[in-house]
């Protein structure tokens, strides 16, 4: 069970978080249909590092982008997404 260092709350247990989708799957509103469907229906799905969108669902409810390795589960980078926030 990972210990995920939330940029807002500090290190917290993985069960407080939920994985939503990968960055390469994000469909921006208004994207052209072909590009939107290519992003929605195909994944790099590497056996290594990938950028993933998580949420600290049961903590600060913020959205996070993790760079995480799919064999070792090691998180090499994590940043907060979402609106500009006061410290």
């Amino acid at each position, binding site marked *: 069970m990972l210990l995920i260092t939330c940029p807002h709350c500090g290190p917290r247990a993985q069960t407080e978080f939920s994985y939503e989708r990968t960055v390469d799957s994000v469909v921006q509103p208004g994207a052209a249909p072909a590009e939107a469907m290519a992003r929605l229906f195909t994944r790099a799905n590497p056996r290594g590092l990938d950028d993933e969108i998580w949420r600290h669902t049961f903590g600060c*409810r913020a959205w996070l982008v993790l760079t995480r390795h799919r064999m*070792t589960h090691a998180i090499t980078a994590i940043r907060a*997404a979402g609106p500009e926030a006061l410290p």
Partner: protein
Amino acid sequence: MNGPRRGGAAGAIRFTFDGRALLARPGDTLAAALLANGIGLVARSFKYHRPRGIMAAGVEEPNALVTVGAGGREEPNTRATDLFVYDGMVARSQNRWPSLAFDAGSVLGLAAKALPAGFYYKTFFGSAKRWMFYEWFIRRAAGLGDAPTAADPDRFTQRAAFCDVLVVGAGPAGLSAALAAAEAGERVMLVEQDRILAPSLVRDPQDLDPAWAEATAARIGELGGRILLRTTAAGYWDDNLITVSQRLAEPGEPPAGGIAQRLWHVRAGRVILATGALERPLAFAHNDRPGVMLSQAVRTYVRRFGVVPGRRVVIAANNDDAYLTATALRDAGAEIVAVLDTRPVPAGATSGFPVHNDAMPLATKGARHHLREVSARVGGKVMHWRADLLAMSGGFTPVVHLHMQAGGAALEWDDASQSFLPGGARQNVVSVGSAASVAPVGPTPPPENPGKAFIDFQNDVSLGDVDLAWAEGYRSVEHLKRYTTLGMATDQGKTSNMAALGRLAEKQGVAIPEAGLTTFRPPYTPVTMGLLAGRTERDAGAHLRRLALFDVHQAKTPIWQPLGYWKRPRAYPQGGENLAEAALREARSVRTAVGMTDVSTLAKFEVSGPDAVQLLELVCATTVGKLAVGRGRYTFMLREDGLVFDDGTVWRLAENRYLLTSSTGGADRMAVHLSYVRQFLCPQLKVSVVNVQEHYAGIAVAGPTAKAVLAGLIGEEVPRHMSAVGASIAGSPVMVLAASYSGERAFEIYAEASLAEPVWNACEAAVTAQGGSLYGMEAMEFLRIEKGHLVVGGEVDGRLTPHDLALDKMLNKAGGYIGAAGLARPGLTAPGRKQLVGLEAIAGTIPEGAMLVTALGQPAGGHVTAAARRVLESGSIALGQLVDGFARHGEELVATSPTRSQSAAVRVVAPHFYDTAGERYRD
């Protein structure tokens, strides 16, 4: 085994084994007490039902498994070596019929030659039915103990713990490491699976005075360290999260506080593994006979429990440690008739024991299921000794399970000790003491009769089976394990894996490290399922979610209906009514007078800010911006792939404040969707989305006289259809939204949940005054089906487009809503798609969920999503999905339900049966 094996007082703890009343001393394990009482035969092996005794003194015991406890507390497959006797303990042997001494199953042992490893893959052919005939017998012979049938009376709890250092094992190495960390000011947790500190010091007091252990533990406690005995570190997970199982009562023992065990989720800064080492057996013919034991285990029984398991002893070993056992036995009055040392002279020369070098046991003989004679090859010749105990030691295996479970960990081969030592690791973990290195060993000659030399004692796997697997091509270590079931018993190969690996490496012609290892998986030792479930309540880990007005409804003893984790009133039967009768009465009162129901569980979001419309017109596929303040409208939402996944209503409460409602079933999913769109996709928007699902309790009042009821309640202007006003009822501020699901003129009243009861009571008084009544979910289904309103999870099943649901006319012409891109896919507008239709029964009652076929025997062209009877008139109607349904109105089909042997002739019609022009909404 003849005669008791312990001098002095018999002990005061009463227990029974297979009905025999016996006595034990405090601190005895069941194994120690059985040996003390002269009981050698304690179990039957899994496959051949061979007689088995006690081989070890710890968790690695493969043979001595018993069922202990009574009723729902009964625990099968409990190791007698890992069970401390308590007063009144009831223990029974397993896997034997009619008795332990005379087990019919042992006939399998006689047929052993015809039943090698994997025999079941080569026979029992014929039909699947014929295999099930053989399987019936196999399943009864297999399995060990019996599961209890009564409910478990005890509870199990789970708890988190955080520490800088977790030390596993309170032996000398573990205690020293824990002390050092505590004195350095670190938050320390020390866990020990035994009941006492440093059991190895009790076995070998010459190493260190056992009193040192007590003093060290006390000091650690003073420094704030937490020490847990009878506690096993069972699983090592990511980022140093270790699952630790603590026994508060012995297996089968009624726990003092009602809690049998506690599971700790420990997050440790770093982990120190002081898990010691396990002794290896030797492989020779009939090495599984009761009376053949591991050397250190014998020493433990002598020194810790005062039990001398044999009077005439043969020691067989390839290392020096076994001589300590010889000394302990001699000091306790046993006679060492021979020490068989596999190593050449001068090994053992100065020991003072009758040592035979280059010696390896050949076979054992027995009488009445106990050891009587040992034969060995000494140099060139064969020798024999009468003996009632054979203490064997094939060297030691460091316990590397947790190190390997940590993931990304390496093992290094140590030739001197012929064992794997823990190497580097990805996580912050280190091994100390004999978990990190063990004594060197001499050679271990292979047995001369591999077919009868057992390596996995519980699953009856011999070295002969390993040879057979090799011959048949099962040559990877994983194939070997799965084909022979070696290492798949309850001891998970703790005393068998190394012997098998040695043989496999020999066959592959490589050194053991190259032969490969099987995967180390949690748990280290088996963990009680109830503990893992954290079984405080029988709630399947899913709390019941209660309505704000739960007690108000409960007082009327409704029929409750689950939806997700909620429960909602389905009907309020009166005077012996059944569900259908109550629901029809309730529905009719809504159609003819007025009815009232609880709609609190609807998902509700308050969306406020200048960019509220921009957000709402992304999530909703209909326009929102055109709404005037105080007005609302129906809407629906698409997934990114263009398919409808939810629907609801949107209301403009104020200039920049909207209320969005959507389905109860989809509430959590909608909350995530809205948050993803607002926070991740459009962080720059000036808008707040707040989940107010539970902030408001919702009361719907519907019916021809609903308007009069509302006028009486709120006094001023009652909102017209799809309008909203603020008001107050019973002194509480409320929002009144004029929306209708039932098809009647209706109002949804939202009051702050904590103030809802007086509002409900006021409404109930007003409704009953108008001759109305409460109605539940069942009546609502009748009403909404008749009206043709959709249900998420019914008609909206996540597979249909707006057009398929006849909602496309409401789509926002400007586009830009989530799902618009998905809708462009050609397949979504091709012919042959399922479309929403209404169904009228020509004959019979339409079964909900039935398949729609042109005639019986034809493939299904669609199905019934919702069925009900007309409310005021008679007749069975339904909504459904039908291929190209829009073009097939008037067609006659059959709605067939073979599983319920029901069917009805139906006609395809428009999905609206009641007030199709919508006059009943207008005043």
